[in-house]
C-alpha cells in the first residue's frame, strides 16, 4: 500500500531558507522510499519547477482562513490520507483537525524558534496531541518538552542533512582574484542579513576584527547574504572594524556557488545565539571549512565535536578572538565527523521514523 502524506508547511519548493530546504530533503527521502506527498505551502511557488517523483505542491495560500479551507479540500481530494505532516507549530491545530477528520496520523515538525511562544491554550494542546514530533536539534526537543506535556518518547530528533554538492575541494584562486580578497586569512559568515535574525552575531565578528587584524593584517571578514538589515550592518562594520577593507559584503550568493566560497575561506565564523540547528555550519564543514559557532540554540548539534569546530559564548569577545586564532592554525575540518549528516543516513532515519509512526497505536487525543 502506498503511504499518502498531506504536508502543511510554511514553505518548501520555490522558496529559500533552511526550513524550506529541510522540508525538501525530508519529502524527497520519503518519496524515494515510495510515499506520495502533497504539499500545501503558505509561501513559495513551485510553478514551473520540475518536482521529484511522487511529490506534488499546490500553489501557495498565505491567508489563514483560505489556507484552512484549501487544506480541507485537498485532504478530501487526496483521501485516504495516512499522515498529516505539519511543518510549523502555528498550523498544529489545523493539522490536528485534519488528521482527526480523515483518520490520519499526525506528525509535527518543530524547528526551534517556532516553539518559543507556545503559551497555554489551543496551540499547546495541539502540540501535545501529536502522534510524532520531530525536532532538528536536541535543544529544540528539550525546549519543547519543557513547554508542552508530551511523552518524551514521542519527540524524536531528525537532524538536518548536508547535500552532496557540499564536499571538499581545492580553493579557487580565480575566485579569490575575482572578488579581490587578497592573501587572507578569510573569515566567512553565510546567513540572511535580517533585522529579525540579529542573533546570528555579525556585529560580534566585526568588533573582534581590530584585535585579529593586529595579528593577521590581511585578514578579511567575508559576509555572504542579503536582507533588510544589510545597510545597518555595513554601517556597523565601518564603525567597529576600524578599516573599511576589513569586511567584504558579497550580497546574496546562490547555493551552487557556496561550496567554492567555503573551499576558499579559512574559517567559518558565526557566533549565533539562537540557531535552530545551523545547517550552514555543517555545509561549511562538509567543504572542509573549520567552524566557530555560538553556544545556544541547536548549534551544538551541527558542531558535534572538535573535529568540526568549536562553539563560544557569543557575549565573550575575547573567547571569540582566541577561538578564531586557535582555529586558524588547525587546518581543515575532518570529514568523518560530517559523514553521519550525509543524505543516506538522513533518508534512512526519516523513513524509520515514518515506519514507526505508522506502526504505533493510532491515538486521537482530544484537544477540546
Amino acid at each position, binding site marked *: 500500500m502506498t503511504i499518502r502524506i498531506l504536508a502543511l508547511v510554511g514553505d518548501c519548493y520555490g522558496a529559500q531558507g533552511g526550513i524550506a530546504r529541510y522540508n525538501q530533503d525530508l519529502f524527497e527521502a520519503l518519496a524515494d522510499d515510495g510515499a506520495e506527498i502533497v504539499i500545501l505551502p503558505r509561501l513559495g511557488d513551485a510553478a514551473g519547477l520540475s518536482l521529484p517523483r511522487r511529490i506534488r505542491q499546490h500553489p501557495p495560500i498565505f491567508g489563514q482562513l483560505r489556507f484552512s479551507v484549501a487544506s480541507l479540500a485537498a485532504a478530501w481530494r487526496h483521501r485516504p490520507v495516512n499522515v498529516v505532516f505539519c511543518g510549523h507549530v502555528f498550523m498544529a491545530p489545523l493539522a490536528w483537525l485534519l488528521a482527526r477528520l480523515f483518520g490520519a496520523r499526525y506528525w509535527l515538525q518543530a524547528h526551534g524558534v517556532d516553539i518559543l511562544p507556545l503559551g497555554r491554550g489551543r496551540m499547546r494542546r495541539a502540540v501535545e496531541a501529536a502522534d510524532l514530533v520531530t*525536532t532538528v*536539534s*536536541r535543544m529544540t*526537543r*528539550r525546549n519543547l*518538552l*519543557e513547554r508542552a*506535556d508530551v*511523552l*518524551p*518518547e*514521542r*519527540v*524524536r*530528533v531528525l*537532524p538536518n542533512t548536508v547535500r552532496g554538492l557540499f564536499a571538499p575541494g581545492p580553493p579557487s584562486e580565480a575566485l579569490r582574484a575575482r572578488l579581490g580578497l587578497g592573501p587572507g586569512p578569510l573569515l566567512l559568515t553565510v546567513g540572511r542579513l535580517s533585522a529579525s535574525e540579529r542573533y546570528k552575531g555579525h556585529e560580534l565578528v566585526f568588533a573582534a576584527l581590530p584585535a585579529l587584524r593586529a595579528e593577521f593584517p590581511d585578514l578579511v571578514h567575508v559576509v555572504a547574504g542579503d536582507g533588510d538589515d544589510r545597510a545597518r550592518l555595513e554601517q556597523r562594520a565601518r564603525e567597529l572594524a576600524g578599516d573599511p577593507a576589513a569586511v567584504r559584503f558579497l550580497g546574496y550568493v546562490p547555493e551552487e556557488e557556496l561550496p567554492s566560497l567555503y573551499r576558499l575561506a579559512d574559517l567559518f565564523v558565526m557566533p549565533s545565539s539562537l540557531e535552530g540547528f545551523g545547517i550552514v555550519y555543517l555545509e561549511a564543514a562538509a567543504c572542509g571549512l573549520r567552524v566557530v559557532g555560538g553556544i545556544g540554540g541547536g548549534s551544538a*548539534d551541527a558542531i*558535534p*565535536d572538535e573535529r568540526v569546530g568549536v562553539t563560544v559564548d557569543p557575549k565573550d569577545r575575547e573567547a571569540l578572538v582566541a577561538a578564531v586564532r586557535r582555529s586558524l592554525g588547525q587546518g581543515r575540518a575532518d570529514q568523518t565527523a560530517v559523514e*553521519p*549528516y550525509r543524505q543516506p*543516513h538522513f533518508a*534512512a*532515519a526519516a523513513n*524509520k*521514523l515514518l515506519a*514507526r509512526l505508522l506502526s*504505533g497505536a493510532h491515538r486521537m487525543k482530544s484537544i477540546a
Partner: protein
Amino acid sequence: MCGIAGIHAYLDVAPSVDRGELARMNLRMATRGPDGSGDWLSADGRVGFTHRRLAIIDLSERGAQPMHSADGALTITFNGEIYNYRELRAELEAKGCVFRSDSDTEVMLQLYEERGPAMVEALRGMFAFGLWDSRQRRLVLARDPLGIKPLYYSDDGWTVRFASQAKALLAGGAVSRDPDPAGIVGFHLLGSVPEPFTVWQGIRSVPAGATMIVDATGPHEPRQYYSVARSLARRAGEAKADAAGARAAMSAAVHDSVRHHLVADVPVAVFLSAGLDSGALLGTMAELGARDTLAVTLAFEEFRGAPLDEAPLAAEVAARYGARHVVRTVTRPEFERDLPAIFDAMDLPTIDGINTWFVAKAAHEAGIKVALSGLGADECFGGYPSFADVPRSVHWLQPFGWVPGLGAVARRAISSLGGARLGMHPKAAGLFEYGGSWPGAYLLRRSVYMPWELDDLLEPELLEEGLRRLAPLSRIAAELQAGRPLGDFDRVAALETSLYMRNQLLRDADWAGMAHSIEIRVPYVDPFFLAALPPGEVLAAVNAKEAVADIPAPPLPLASRARPKTGFVTPVGRWLREAAGAAQDVNFSTASRGWALRVWQTGWTSGLAPA
C-alpha cells in the same frame, strides 16, 4: 543484585560511547556491588554497558557481567534475582539449550533468544536489565512487574542512557539537571516521587512491569506487561473457597513464595520486627528447613523496657524458630552521624527509608548479603488502616460530589474558620472535596500536603505546571483500571501496591539496602504469590492480616498476636521531627511535613545537584 548502567548512541550523528562516562556512572554505584565490576563496549562503539556485582548466585567468575550469549550476539547487564531460574533452565535444556554457567543471568539470555522481550513474563523475581540485541540492533530495557528493582533512563534525542540510580546518570556528566515540576510537586504531595517522574526533567523511571525498546529511532513508549489491578481482577473472578480453604491457600502461597526467595549460594537472613509478617517469614523459613537463620531486629535506647520495644517479642519469635538473633541498638548520635551519608545514598527525595538504612547496616555488620523482609504484607493482606478508611470515606462522602463545587467551598470555609486552631489536621479541610471519590480519598489518606497547601512551598509557575503534568487524581485513578470493577479490598490493595509500596517502600528498600550492599528480598511482593492468594473479599473475610500468624508450623506465639499494630513508632520519627526543627507537640503525620522540607532543602535545592 547489583548496579547496572549503559549508554546507547542510537542516532548516527551521536558521538560514540564515552568510556569515561560509563566509569563515572559505575563508580557512583560502588556500594551496590562490592564483589566485582565489569564493562563492555561494542566493537562499533555505539553501545556500552557497565555492571557492579554483588555475588549471590554462581559466585564464580562465570557469573560475571556484562554477560554475552554463546555466539556473542546478545549482551546483558542485569540487576536482581530470578527465583525460578532453575525451572526455566530445565525447560530450556529440555529443548536442547546448553548452559555454560550456573547463573540466573545466562538463563535470561537464553530465554530472550527463545521468546524475545516477552520473556519477562516468565520471570519470577526482581529485576532490571539492559539487553543489547546486536542482530536486531536494539536495546531492551525491562523492570520487574511490581517495581522492586529501579531503572532510570535519560534520552536526549541522540543517545539513551540507563542506570539503577538517577544519581548515577547525573554522575556520568552528560545528563541535564533541569528540574522536573511534576516530580517536585509529586514529592511534596506524597513524600516520595511518583514514577515515571524523577525530580529531573531529563531522567525518568522505566515503569514497573514494563519493557522498553530502543532502536535506531530511539526509545519507544514503554510497554506495560503487568498491571496490579488487572491481576487482582483476574483473581477475583476465580472460584471462592470457604474460610478453611482460604487459609490453606494463603499458607500454601506464603510457603511457595518463601521457598522461591531462599534460592541463593550465600546465607539468607531475615529482618525481624515484633509484627506478624516478618515472624511468619522466619517461621516458614524454619519449616522449610533453613537452620541457624540470622534474624536482625532494630532496637532503640529510648524504648528500652517500654511496650514499644520490639526486641523482647522478636527474641521470643527468634527462639521459637531456632534463629540466631541480632538486636542492633540505634542511638540518636549515630543517626545524626549517618545523616550526611543517608542524604548521599538517597537517590530521590523521600520521607522514609531511615529504618531500612539501619537494619541493613546491622545486617552488613553481621556479614550478611541477603535478607528477607516483610515489606508488602500490609498491601496484600489489608494491614493498613486505609483498607477501612478509604472505602468508608468514599461511601459516606460520595453524595457531596454530586453538587459541583461544594467540596471546594467547604474546604475554603474550614480553612478560613481556622481549622488548625480547632485541632484539625490541615488536610481535614479537604474531606468534602476529595473524600468522596476513590482517587481523592486515597490522596487524602496518603498525602503529606494537599494540592491547595503547596502555594506556600513552591513557586506558583512550578506548582501549576507540576500539577498539570502530574495530574495526581487521574494518575491514581489509572491504577484502578482493571477492565472491570474491583471490590473495595482489591481497590485499596491495587492503590497501595502500585503507588505507596512502589514509589515509597520499594524505592527506599533499594537505596537504603544497597548503600550497605544488602539485597533485600520481599516474598510478599511477587505476582505469582499474589495470584495464588484467595480473592480480596475472601482475604478480608478471613481477616488475613491476623491469619498470617497461623501460616508457619508451629504458629507464631500468642504474644505476637496480642500486640497492637503500632505502625511507625520508632524514635526515628521523633528524631526526624527534631532534625526537621518542627514543634514538639504535633502528631507524626504533620511532623513528616517538616522532614519532607528538610530532605528537600538539604539534599535537592542546591541546584538539584547532588554529588
